C-alpha cells in the first residue's frame, strides 16, 4: 500500500483559442476546405492553461492551491476531478475521490428538498443506501427540516446553499477536492463549513485539496500549499511560505506605473504618521494613502474624481473613499504632478490584510482603474484607549461609542 494519494507528472492543458472550440457545421467544413489550400492553419492560437505540473500529495495531507484569477487553479482541479482530460502528462489517484467544484450541482427547482438530497448526493457519488442512512443528519445539519418536502424553488438562496452544503459535508471520500465553495452563504454558515472541513482533514485523516482566495481559511486548514502562476507551479512549500509568496506577488504590482492618455498615476503608497515599516498601520492610528498623479495634457484638468476602495482578504469591500462623496474634486495643473493624500484619522479597520483599489476619472470618463493596486496590513492598536479590541470574527470595523446611563 502506497502512502501517496495523488501523484502528478508533467501535466499540461492546452486550449486553442479561435474558431475551433465549438461551432457550426459550416465553420468546421469551411476550415477543412481551407486546410486543403493552406498547409498550416494560422488562425488557431494555442494557449497553455497549465504546463509541466509535477507534484505529489501524501495520504492525509491537506494542501491549499493558491494563485491569482486565471492562473490555472481551476483547470488543475478540473483535470484532477476528471471533468476534462489533460493534453500532456499523467496523474494517479489512490483512493475514492469526491470533488466539490460548486455546491448543489444538479439541484432541480421543481423537486423537493428531500428529492434534491438524493439527486445531489448521487451526483456527488454517494450510494442510495448511504444517503438514506445519513438523511436525518444531512437535514438537521442544513436546518431546513420544516421545508424538506417543499419544492426547492420556494427556498431562499441561503436555504438552498445550506441544504446543498449539508449534502456535500456528508460525503465520505478518501480524497476531497474542493473549489471555492466557501464563498457562499452567510458568515456563520461559512464558519460551520470551515469547521467541517477542518474535522475532515485533521481528525479523520483524509486527503484534502483546497483552492481558495481566502488566505485565512487556507492557512488554518492546510499544512502545505502550491502557488500557481501563469499555468506553472511557482512554489511548492509549507502553507506559510505559500501565502507569503502569494502576497508578495500581489505586492509586486505596487510600484508599477498606471497610465491613461491624459494622466499617469506615478506613485501610490501608504504613509502612517509614526512611520511604521512595511505598510503596517495600527488600529486607531492615523494614516494616509498618498498618490502622485501627473497631468500629461497641456490643459488644466479640473474636478478630477479619485476614489479608493478598501477590501479585506476575503474580497469584501470594507470602505469606499471618494472625492465625489464630499465634493472635493481635484484640480491637476497641466504637465505637472499633483500629490493627493487621503487621510484617515482613527483607523477604523480591524487587524488583517487589506487591498486598495484605485479609480480615477475625468468628466465621467474612467482614466485609471486598478483593482487591488496596493496592499497593507492593519495590526492591533489602541483604538478604544483601553488596549482591548473585539476579536477578528466579531467585527469588520471599529467605531467609537459612548454609553449613557439613566439612573
Amino acid at each position, binding site marked *: *500500500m502506497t502512502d501517496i494519494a495523488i501523484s502528478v507528472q508533467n501535466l*499540461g492543458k492546452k*486550449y486553442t483559442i479561435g474558431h475551433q*472550440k*465549438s*461551432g*457550426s*457545421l*459550416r465553420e*468546421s467544413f469551411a476550415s477543412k476546405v481551407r486546410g486543403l489550400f493552406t498547409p498550416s492553419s494560422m488562425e488557431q492560437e494555442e494557449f497553455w492553461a497549465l504546463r509541466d505540473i509535477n507534484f505529489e500529495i501524501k495520504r492525509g495531507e491537506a494542501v491549499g492551491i493558491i494563485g491569482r484569477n486565471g492562473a490555472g487553479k481551476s483547470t488543475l482541479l*478540473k*483535470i484532477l*476531478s*476528471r*471533468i*476534462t*482530460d*489533460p*493534453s*500532456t*502528462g*499523467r*496523474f*494517479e*489517484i*489512490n*483512493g*475514492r*475521490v469526491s*470533488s466539490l*467544484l*460548486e455546491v448543489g*450541482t*444538479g439541484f*432541480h427547482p*421543481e*423537486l423537493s428538498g428531500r*428529492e434534491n438530497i*438524493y*439527486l445531489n448526493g*448521487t*451526483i*456527488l457519488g454517494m*450510494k*442510495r443506501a448511504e444517503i438514506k442512512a445519513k438523511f436525518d443528519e444531512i437535514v438537521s445539519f442544513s436546518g431546513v427540516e420544516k421545508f424538506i418536502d417543499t419544492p426547492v424553488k420556494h427556498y431562499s438562496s441561503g436555504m438552498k446553499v445550506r441544504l446543498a452544503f449539508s449534502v456535500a459535508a456528508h460525503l465520505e471520500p*478518501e480524497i476531497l477536492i474542493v473549489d471555492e465553495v466557501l464563498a457562499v452563504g452567510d458568515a456563520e454558515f461559512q464558519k460551520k463549513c470551515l469547521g467541517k472541513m477542518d474535522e475532515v482533514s485533521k481528525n479523520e485523516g483524509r486527503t484534502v485539496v483546497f483552492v481558495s482566495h481566502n488566505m485565512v481559511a487556507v492557512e488554518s486548514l492546510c499544512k502545505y500549499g502550491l502557488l500557481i502562476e501563469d499555468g506553472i507551479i511557482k512554489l511548492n512549500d509549507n502553507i506559510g511560505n505559500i501565502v507569503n509568496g502569494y502576497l508578495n506577488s500581489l505586492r509586486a504590482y505596487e510600484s508599477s506605473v498606471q497610465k491613461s492618455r491624459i494622466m499617469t498615476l506615478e506613485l501610490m503608497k501608504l504613509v502612517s504618521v509614526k512611520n511604521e515599516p512595511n505598510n503596517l498601520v495600527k488600529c486607531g492610528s492615523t494614516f494616509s494613502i498618498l498618490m502622485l498623479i501627473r497631468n500629461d495634457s497641456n490643459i488644466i484638468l479640473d474636478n478630477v474624481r479619485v476614489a479608493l476602495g478598501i477590501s479585506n482578504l476575503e474580497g469584501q469591500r470594507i470602505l469606499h473613499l471618494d472625492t465625489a462623496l464630499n465634493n472635493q474634486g481635484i484640480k491637476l495643473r497641466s504637465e505637472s504632478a499633483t500629490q493627493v493624500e487621503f487621510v484617515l484619522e482613527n483607523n477604523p479597520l480591524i487587524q488583517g490584510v487589506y487591498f486598495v483599489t484605485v479609480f480615477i476619472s475625468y468628466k465621467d470618463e474612467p482614466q485609471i482603474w486598478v483593482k487591488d493596486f496596493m496592499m497593507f496590513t492593519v495590526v492591533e492598536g489602541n483604538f478604544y484607549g483601553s488596549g482591548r479590541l473585539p476579536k477578528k470574527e466579531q467585527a469588520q470595523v471599529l467605531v467609537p461609542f459612548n454609553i449613557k446611563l439613566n439612573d
Partner: protein
Amino acid sequence: MHKTVVDANSSPFRLNLRELWAYRDLFIILAYRDLRVRYAQTFLGLFWAFIQPAATLLIFSVVFGRAVKVDTGGIPYPVFAIAGMSAWTYFAFVLNQSGNSIIGAQEMVKKIYFPRLVIPLSKAVVGLVDFAIVMLFLVGLMLIYRVPISANIWALPFFLLLTVVSSLAVGIWLSALTIRYRDFQHVVPFMVQFGLYATPIAYPAETIVKNLPHWANVLYYLNPMAGVVEGFRWAIIGGAAPSEYSWISFGLIFLLFLSGIVYFKKIEKVMADIV
C-alpha cells in the same frame, strides 16, 4: 484500494462497462428527475403522454383510414396505425430528448465527473414510460376492435430490443454531435417530422416495396426505424411478414450503435471544454 490513472497518451477508446454499471444509481435518479419534472405543475399530468399519440392517431384515422383508405389487410385502421406508432413514438421521444441532453446537463458536465453516456441512456429510460402508455393504448384498441394477438408474438421481445437499440444508437450520435455542432438542434425536429411519413406507420411497408424501384426501396430502408416498425407491427397483429429489405435497417442500427459509442467516447474527452 480504488485507483484512478489518467494519461494524456492513453488510447482514446475505452468503453468502461463496469464503471457505467457503478453509476447505475445516478442513471436511475436522473431518469426519475426527468419524469417528475416533466409533468410538474401540469393539470393533466401523465395523461399528456396519452393525448399526444391519441391526437396523431385521430388525424391518421381520418386521413389515411377514411379518406385515402389505406389497405391494411383487414385490420381496423386505428389498431394498425397505433401498432406502428408505438415504436415510432418511443424513437421520436429519445431523439428529441437526447439531442439537447448534454447541453441541458452542462452545469453538471462542467462541475462533476461521471460517464457522460449516463445522460443519453437515462433519456432512453424515461421514454419507456411513454412507450408503455402507448402500448396500453394499443392493447385497449385491440380489445375494442377484437383484434387477436398474432402468432408472431414470440418475435416481440426481439423487436422491442431493436426499438430501444436503434433509438439509443441515433440518440447517442445526436447527443455527441449537438455538442460540437448546434446545427443538429434544428435538424432533429425536421428528422422526426420527416420520419413520421418515411416510416411505415400510417401505411403498410408493402405499398412501398411493391410500387417503388429497387434502389428506392434500399434508400427507404436506410431509415433504421423502417424495418423495426414493420417487424414490430407484424409481431403484434400479424399481416405481411417484414420484407428482406428490413435487414438493411437492422444492419444499419448495429453500425450506428457501435459507431455512435465510438464517436461519443471521442467527444467525451473534450465535452466539458466545448459544451
